[in-house]
């Protein structure tokens, strides 16, 4: 897939993926409620943010996309 924006890496271990995206030339930030390693870009209560986003989400119909199932 093409990523024209940035990658938002959330929760634990997000820093590892963030660094690899950046090395591949894709802007990325990591978000977590903790900042144990001093590398979290945005220390934020993700649970609260999800609840807020869900509360403010307007319902409208979405056509179900086809589901692919791949085991590797």
């Amino acid at each position, binding site marked *: 897939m093409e990523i024209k924006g940035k990658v938002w890496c959330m929760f*634990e271990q997000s820093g590892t993926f963030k660094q690899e995206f950046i090395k591949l030339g894709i802007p990325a930030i990591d978000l977590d409620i903790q900042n144990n390693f001093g590398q979290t870009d945005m220390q934020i209560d993700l649970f609260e943010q999800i609840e807020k986003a*869900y509360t403010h989400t307007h319902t409208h119909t979405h056509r179900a996309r086809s589901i692919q199932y791949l085991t590797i």
Partner: protein
Amino acid sequence: MTEDDLIVAFFPCIEFSCVAQMWFSLTQKDYAKWSYKQRVDYMLEKNNRRAYMFGLLCKLCCVSLVKGIRMVFENPWSENTYLKQNVFLKPPSLIDKDRTRRGDYFKKPTAYWFWNCEPTKGCTIQQTPSIMIKSVSLQKKAPKAGLCSEERSMISPDYARNFICDFILGKEQKLTQLSLF
């Protein structure tokens, strides 16, 4: 966030883990000194916590779907995790049965759900030498029950890069296996 972005979420798995299922057995060894009421009270507390986390995950997926934001979230897929045992929104988009094949420290079967996007089909082989493969059960536990151990959650940079190239970007690397057809 916009539709040009991508969310990659390592959603907290402690409440869904197969080990957490043990808390719902009356004969769990940590309950040895507890009364039946204490055990059931604790089970109800664990059940509420798990229900909250499950609801939060569903809400996150809903927000992604409705807003059209692409998202990949991961959760363990070994033994009988809660998401594996029960019906959850949709089946995983892909399951990595052995992460050491792409350079991770652990074998740790892991499922990935892709929302508003599909995984690309790369195949990078970077087998971790057996001497460097770790066992989850031998890693340091979390400082207290209910938390996820950092050592057990560790992902190697090699695995992260290989996963991104194989399943998100569809980018060929030096170790990418080309298909015959």
